[in-house]
Protein backbone atom coordinates (compact mmCIF):
# COMPACT_ATOMS: atom_id res chain seq x y z
CA UNK A 1 0.00 0.00 0.00
CA UNK A 2 1.30 3.42 -0.92
CA UNK A 3 0.03 6.64 0.56
CA UNK A 4 0.51 9.86 -1.37
CA UNK A 5 0.85 12.85 0.94
CA UNK A 6 0.99 16.48 -0.18
CA UNK A 7 2.63 19.07 2.04
CA UNK A 8 0.94 22.32 1.11
CA UNK A 9 0.03 25.76 2.48
CA UNK A 10 -0.83 28.35 -0.14
CA UNK A 11 1.38 30.97 1.44
CA UNK A 12 5.14 30.82 0.94
CA UNK A 13 7.75 30.70 3.65
CA UNK A 14 5.65 28.92 6.26
CA UNK A 15 7.81 25.78 6.38
CA UNK A 16 6.51 23.42 3.69
CA UNK A 17 9.89 22.16 2.52
CA UNK A 18 11.23 21.93 6.08
CA UNK A 19 8.15 19.91 6.95
CA UNK A 20 8.26 17.68 3.87
CA UNK A 21 11.94 16.89 4.56
CA UNK A 22 11.40 16.18 8.24
CA UNK A 23 8.26 14.08 7.79
CA UNK A 24 10.06 12.09 5.07
CA UNK A 25 13.02 11.48 7.38
CA UNK A 26 10.76 10.64 10.30
CA UNK A 27 8.84 8.03 8.31
CA UNK A 28 12.06 6.57 6.89
CA UNK A 29 13.54 6.35 10.39
CA UNK A 30 10.62 4.14 11.28
CA UNK A 31 11.68 1.82 8.48
CA UNK A 32 9.19 3.05 5.89
CA UNK A 33 10.22 3.29 2.26
CA UNK A 34 9.76 6.97 1.40
CA UNK A 35 10.16 9.19 -1.65
CA UNK A 36 10.04 12.98 -1.31
CA UNK A 37 9.19 14.84 -4.54
CA UNK A 38 9.88 18.53 -5.14
CA UNK A 39 7.09 20.08 -7.22
CA UNK A 40 8.55 23.57 -7.12
CA UNK A 41 9.68 23.57 -10.74
CA UNK A 42 12.02 26.48 -11.43
CA UNK A 43 12.79 27.10 -7.76
CA UNK A 44 14.36 23.89 -6.51
CA UNK A 45 14.78 23.88 -2.72
CA UNK A 46 14.17 20.45 -1.26
CA UNK A 47 17.61 19.18 -2.30
CA UNK A 48 19.26 21.96 -0.26
CA UNK A 49 17.17 21.30 2.84
CA UNK A 50 17.90 17.56 2.51
CA UNK A 51 21.60 18.25 1.91
CA UNK A 52 21.81 16.42 -1.42
CA UNK A 53 22.08 19.43 -3.78
CA UNK A 54 25.44 18.37 -5.20
CA UNK A 55 24.22 14.92 -6.08
CA UNK A 56 21.37 16.06 -8.35
CA UNK A 57 22.04 14.80 -11.87
CA UNK A 58 18.54 14.24 -13.22
CA UNK A 59 15.30 15.77 -12.04
CA UNK A 60 11.52 15.44 -12.09
CA UNK A 61 11.11 16.95 -15.56
CA UNK A 62 13.88 14.77 -17.03
CA UNK A 63 11.95 11.74 -15.84
CA UNK A 64 8.65 13.00 -17.23
CA UNK A 65 10.25 13.75 -20.61
CA UNK A 66 11.87 10.32 -20.70
CA UNK A 67 15.40 11.74 -20.66
CA UNK A 68 16.38 9.35 -17.88
CA UNK A 69 14.82 6.60 -15.83
CA UNK A 70 13.17 7.26 -12.48
CA UNK A 71 15.83 5.11 -10.81
CA UNK A 72 18.56 7.36 -12.22
CA UNK A 73 16.84 10.49 -10.93
CA UNK A 74 16.00 9.29 -7.42
CA UNK A 75 18.69 10.40 -4.98
CA UNK A 76 19.23 8.03 -2.09
CA UNK A 77 19.61 9.77 1.26
CA UNK A 78 23.05 9.42 2.85
CA UNK A 79 21.64 9.05 6.36
CA UNK A 80 18.66 6.79 5.78
CA UNK A 81 18.61 3.78 3.47
CA UNK A 82 14.90 3.85 2.75
CA UNK A 83 14.66 7.57 1.91
CA UNK A 84 14.82 8.97 -1.63
CA UNK A 85 14.55 12.47 -3.10
CA UNK A 86 13.37 13.53 -6.54
CA UNK A 87 14.62 17.07 -7.21
CA UNK A 88 12.71 19.76 -9.07
CA UNK A 89 14.13 21.16 -12.29
CA UNK A 90 15.74 24.52 -12.09
CA UNK A 91 15.83 26.02 -15.57
CA UNK A 92 12.50 24.70 -16.84
CA UNK A 93 9.36 26.69 -17.06
CA UNK A 94 6.70 25.64 -14.65
CA UNK A 95 4.47 24.15 -17.36
CA UNK A 96 6.96 21.33 -17.82
CA UNK A 97 4.94 19.13 -15.46
CA UNK A 98 1.81 17.45 -16.72
CA UNK A 99 -0.88 15.48 -14.92
CA UNK A 100 -0.16 12.35 -16.98
CA UNK A 101 3.57 12.71 -16.42
CA UNK A 102 3.11 13.04 -12.66
CA UNK A 103 0.74 10.06 -12.67
CA UNK A 104 3.35 7.94 -14.49
CA UNK A 105 6.04 8.82 -11.93
CA UNK A 106 3.70 8.07 -9.03
CA UNK A 107 2.66 4.74 -10.56
CA UNK A 108 6.29 3.76 -11.02
CA UNK A 109 7.04 4.62 -7.38
CA UNK A 110 4.02 2.58 -6.29
CA UNK A 111 5.21 -0.37 -8.40
CA UNK A 112 8.61 0.02 -6.73
CA UNK A 113 6.94 -0.57 -3.32
CA UNK A 114 7.33 2.90 -1.89
CA UNK A 115 5.09 3.14 1.17
CA UNK A 116 4.94 6.93 1.34
CA UNK A 117 5.27 9.48 -1.43
CA UNK A 118 5.59 13.00 -0.05
CA UNK A 119 4.84 15.79 -2.51
CA UNK A 120 6.40 19.11 -1.53
CA UNK A 121 4.11 21.73 -3.03
CA UNK A 122 5.30 25.13 -4.26
CA UNK A 123 3.65 28.23 -2.77
CA UNK A 124 0.64 29.68 -4.50
CA UNK A 125 -2.20 27.95 -6.32
CA UNK A 126 -0.67 27.65 -9.78
CA UNK A 127 0.01 24.51 -11.78
CA UNK A 128 2.81 23.06 -9.63
CA UNK A 129 0.72 23.42 -6.48
CA UNK A 130 -2.30 21.96 -8.25
CA UNK A 131 -0.40 18.93 -9.55
CA UNK A 132 1.28 18.31 -6.19
CA UNK A 133 -2.12 17.87 -4.54
CA UNK A 134 -4.02 16.35 -7.44
CA UNK A 135 -3.33 12.67 -6.68
CA UNK A 136 -2.98 13.01 -2.90
CA UNK A 137 -4.58 10.67 -0.37
CA UNK A 138 -3.68 12.97 2.48
CA UNK A 139 -2.76 16.64 2.82
CA UNK A 140 -0.61 18.12 5.53
CA UNK A 141 -1.57 21.80 5.52
CA UNK A 142 1.29 23.81 7.00
CA UNK A 143 0.12 27.00 8.68
CA UNK A 144 1.65 29.76 10.77
CA UNK A 145 -0.56 31.29 13.49
CA UNK A 146 -0.84 34.47 11.45
CA UNK A 147 -3.79 35.92 9.50
CA UNK A 148 -2.59 35.63 5.90
CA UNK A 149 -1.28 32.11 6.36
CA UNK A 150 -4.55 30.92 7.93
CA UNK A 151 -6.63 32.50 5.18
CA UNK A 152 -4.47 30.99 2.43
CA UNK A 153 -4.71 27.59 4.13
CA UNK A 154 -8.47 27.81 3.99
CA UNK A 155 -8.22 28.53 0.28
CA UNK A 156 -6.09 25.40 -0.09
CA UNK A 157 -8.68 23.38 1.85
CA UNK A 158 -11.23 24.53 -0.72
CA UNK A 159 -9.02 23.31 -3.57
CA UNK A 160 -8.41 19.98 -1.84
CA UNK A 161 -12.17 19.51 -1.64
CA UNK A 162 -12.78 20.28 -5.31
CA UNK A 163 -9.66 20.15 -7.50
CA UNK A 164 -8.19 16.74 -6.68
CA UNK A 165 -8.60 13.37 -8.39
CA UNK A 166 -10.48 12.12 -5.33
CA UNK A 167 -12.90 15.06 -5.46
CA UNK A 168 -13.42 14.79 -9.21
CA UNK A 169 -14.10 11.05 -9.08
CA UNK A 170 -16.34 11.40 -6.03
CA UNK A 171 -14.14 9.12 -3.94
CA UNK A 172 -13.54 9.54 -0.20
CA UNK A 173 -12.09 12.98 0.29
CA UNK A 174 -8.43 13.77 0.82
CA UNK A 175 -7.60 13.39 4.50
CA UNK A 176 -6.71 16.90 5.70
CA UNK A 177 -4.47 17.57 8.68
CA UNK A 178 -3.05 20.82 10.01
CA UNK A 179 0.52 21.31 11.04
CA UNK A 180 1.29 24.57 12.83
CA UNK A 181 4.82 25.89 12.52
CA UNK A 182 6.65 28.86 14.07
CA UNK A 183 4.51 28.46 17.18
CA UNK A 184 5.55 30.68 20.06
CA UNK A 185 3.85 29.56 23.31
CA UNK A 186 5.01 32.64 25.17
CA UNK A 187 3.46 35.02 22.66
CA UNK A 188 0.30 32.93 22.69
CA UNK A 189 0.16 33.23 26.51
CA UNK A 190 0.57 37.00 26.14
CA UNK A 191 -2.32 37.15 23.70
CA UNK A 192 -0.07 38.28 20.85
CA UNK A 193 -0.42 35.15 18.76
CA UNK A 194 -3.36 32.93 17.91
CA UNK A 195 -3.37 29.62 19.75
CA UNK A 196 -3.58 26.11 18.34
CA UNK A 197 -7.24 25.96 19.27
CA UNK A 198 -7.95 29.33 17.61
CA UNK A 199 -6.48 28.15 14.30
CA UNK A 200 -8.14 24.77 14.61
CA UNK A 201 -11.49 26.40 15.27
CA UNK A 202 -11.23 28.70 12.24
CA UNK A 203 -10.13 26.02 9.79
CA UNK A 204 -12.09 23.16 11.33
CA UNK A 205 -9.67 20.30 10.70
CA UNK A 206 -7.60 18.09 12.98
CA UNK A 207 -4.12 19.14 14.12
CA UNK A 208 -1.37 16.60 13.47
CA UNK A 209 1.46 18.60 14.97
CA UNK A 210 2.66 21.88 16.45
CA UNK A 211 6.25 22.90 15.77
CA UNK A 212 7.71 25.52 18.09
CA UNK A 213 9.50 28.57 16.68
CA UNK A 214 13.20 27.90 17.07
CA UNK A 215 16.63 28.96 15.80
CA UNK A 216 17.32 25.25 15.28
CA UNK A 217 15.29 25.30 12.04
CA UNK A 218 17.64 27.80 10.38
CA UNK A 219 20.71 26.03 11.78
CA UNK A 220 19.47 22.75 10.32
CA UNK A 221 18.75 24.22 6.89
CA UNK A 222 22.14 25.96 6.90
CA UNK A 223 23.81 22.59 7.27
CA UNK A 224 21.52 20.63 4.95
CA UNK A 225 20.17 18.38 7.68
CA UNK A 226 16.41 17.94 8.03
CA UNK A 227 15.67 19.44 11.44
CA UNK A 228 14.05 16.22 12.68
CA UNK A 229 17.57 14.70 12.66
CA UNK A 230 18.71 17.28 15.25
CA UNK A 231 17.51 15.07 18.06
CA UNK A 232 18.57 17.46 20.83
CA UNK A 233 16.05 20.05 19.58
CA UNK A 234 12.41 20.47 20.64
CA UNK A 235 11.62 20.93 16.94
CA UNK A 236 12.86 17.41 16.25
CA UNK A 237 10.63 15.98 19.01
CA UNK A 238 7.67 17.95 17.73
CA UNK A 239 8.15 16.54 14.21
CA UNK A 240 8.63 13.02 15.61
CA UNK A 241 5.31 13.41 17.42
CA UNK A 242 3.66 14.57 14.18
CA UNK A 243 5.01 11.50 12.35
CA UNK A 244 3.68 9.24 15.12
CA UNK A 245 0.25 10.88 14.85
CA UNK A 246 0.30 10.45 11.07
CA UNK A 247 0.76 6.76 11.72
CA UNK A 248 -2.24 6.74 14.02
CA UNK A 249 -0.67 7.07 17.46
CA UNK A 250 -2.49 9.21 20.03
CA UNK A 251 -0.08 11.62 21.67
CA UNK A 252 -0.58 14.65 23.89
CA UNK A 253 0.47 17.84 22.10
CA UNK A 254 3.84 19.02 23.44
CA UNK A 255 5.57 22.42 23.20
CA UNK A 256 2.29 24.34 23.18
CA UNK A 257 2.56 25.79 26.69
CA UNK A 258 4.96 28.33 28.05
CA UNK A 259 7.94 26.76 29.83
CA UNK A 260 7.53 26.81 33.63
CA UNK A 261 9.30 29.73 35.27
CA UNK A 262 10.17 30.77 38.80
CA UNK A 263 7.78 32.67 41.05
CA UNK A 264 9.32 36.09 40.49
CA UNK A 265 9.56 35.60 36.77
CA UNK A 266 5.91 34.60 36.75
CA UNK A 267 4.88 37.64 38.81
CA UNK A 268 6.69 40.13 36.68
CA UNK A 269 6.66 38.44 33.33
CA UNK A 270 9.69 38.79 31.14
Amino acid sequence: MTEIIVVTSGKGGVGKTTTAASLGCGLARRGKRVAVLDFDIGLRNLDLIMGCERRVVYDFVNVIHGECTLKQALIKDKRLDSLFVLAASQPRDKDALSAEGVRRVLDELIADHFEYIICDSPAGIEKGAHLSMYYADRAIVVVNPEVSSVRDSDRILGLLASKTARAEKGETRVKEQLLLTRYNPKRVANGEMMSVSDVKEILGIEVVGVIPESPDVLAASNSGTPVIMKTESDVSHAYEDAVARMLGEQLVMRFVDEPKRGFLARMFGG
Partner: protein
Amino acid sequence: MGLLAFFRRNNGTATVAKERLRIIVAQERLTRDGPDYLPLLRREILEVIRKYVNVDPETVQITLEREDGHELLELTVALPGRS
Protein backbone atom coordinates in the same frame (compact mmCIF):
# COMPACT_ATOMS: atom_id res chain seq x y z
CA MET B 1 0.44 33.72 33.71
CA GLY B 2 2.14 36.62 35.54
CA LEU B 3 0.53 39.87 36.56
CA LEU B 4 2.17 41.76 33.74
CA ALA B 5 1.16 39.11 31.28
CA PHE B 6 -2.39 39.36 32.60
CA PHE B 7 -2.53 43.06 31.85
CA ARG B 8 -0.70 42.64 28.59
CA ARG B 9 -3.18 40.01 27.50
CA ASN B 10 -5.92 42.62 27.31
CA ASN B 11 -3.93 44.41 24.66
CA GLY B 12 -3.28 41.21 22.77
CA THR B 13 -4.08 41.31 19.10
CA ALA B 14 -4.64 37.56 18.79
CA THR B 15 -8.37 37.90 19.51
CA VAL B 16 -8.66 40.56 16.80
CA ALA B 17 -6.89 38.25 14.35
CA LYS B 18 -9.18 35.37 15.21
CA GLU B 19 -12.32 37.45 14.86
CA ARG B 20 -11.29 38.92 11.51
CA LEU B 21 -10.38 35.49 10.19
CA ARG B 22 -13.60 33.95 11.43
CA ILE B 23 -15.62 36.46 9.41
CA ILE B 24 -13.56 36.45 6.20
CA VAL B 25 -13.15 32.66 6.13
CA ALA B 26 -16.90 32.15 6.61
CA GLN B 27 -17.61 34.62 3.81
CA GLU B 28 -15.08 33.07 1.44
CA ARG B 29 -16.37 29.57 2.12
CA LEU B 30 -19.88 30.62 1.20
CA THR B 31 -18.85 32.01 -2.16
CA ARG B 32 -16.13 29.42 -2.82
CA ASP B 33 -18.30 26.79 -4.40
CA GLY B 34 -20.44 29.35 -6.15
CA PRO B 35 -20.09 30.53 -9.74
CA ASP B 36 -17.26 32.89 -10.64
CA TYR B 37 -19.63 35.77 -11.30
CA LEU B 38 -20.75 35.94 -7.67
CA PRO B 39 -18.24 38.59 -6.51
CA LEU B 40 -19.03 40.76 -9.55
CA LEU B 41 -22.75 40.28 -9.03
CA ARG B 42 -22.34 41.35 -5.44
CA ARG B 43 -20.47 44.48 -6.46
CA GLU B 44 -22.96 45.48 -9.14
CA ILE B 45 -26.00 44.93 -6.93
CA LEU B 46 -24.28 46.99 -4.29
CA GLU B 47 -23.69 49.81 -6.78
CA VAL B 48 -27.37 49.86 -7.69
CA ILE B 49 -28.42 49.99 -4.05
CA ARG B 50 -25.93 52.73 -3.35
CA LYS B 51 -27.58 54.93 -5.98
CA TYR B 52 -30.55 55.17 -3.65
CA VAL B 53 -29.32 54.43 -0.15
CA ASN B 54 -25.91 54.96 1.35
CA VAL B 55 -25.08 51.50 2.67
CA ASP B 56 -21.84 50.24 4.09
CA PRO B 57 -20.38 47.56 1.75
CA GLU B 58 -19.53 45.46 4.78
CA THR B 59 -23.16 45.10 5.72
CA VAL B 60 -23.99 43.32 2.47
CA GLN B 61 -23.99 39.57 2.68
CA ILE B 62 -24.46 37.31 -0.26
CA THR B 63 -24.86 33.59 0.18
CA LEU B 64 -25.53 30.73 -2.13
CA GLU B 65 -27.25 27.67 -0.77
CA ARG B 66 -27.84 24.41 -2.53
CA GLU B 67 -30.97 22.46 -1.86
CA ASP B 68 -31.76 19.36 -3.81
CA GLY B 69 -32.25 20.39 -7.39
CA HIS B 70 -32.07 24.15 -7.04
CA GLU B 71 -29.86 26.91 -5.74
CA LEU B 72 -30.91 29.75 -3.52
CA LEU B 73 -29.13 33.06 -3.86
CA GLU B 74 -29.68 35.17 -0.79
CA LEU B 75 -28.73 38.82 -0.49
CA THR B 76 -28.98 40.63 2.81
CA VAL B 77 -28.47 44.36 3.00
CA ALA B 78 -28.59 46.17 6.30
CA LEU B 79 -30.02 49.63 5.60
CA PRO B 80 -28.93 52.47 7.82
CA GLY B 81 -31.57 53.51 10.38
CA ARG B 82 -33.55 56.72 9.74
CA SER B 83 -32.28 59.61 11.78
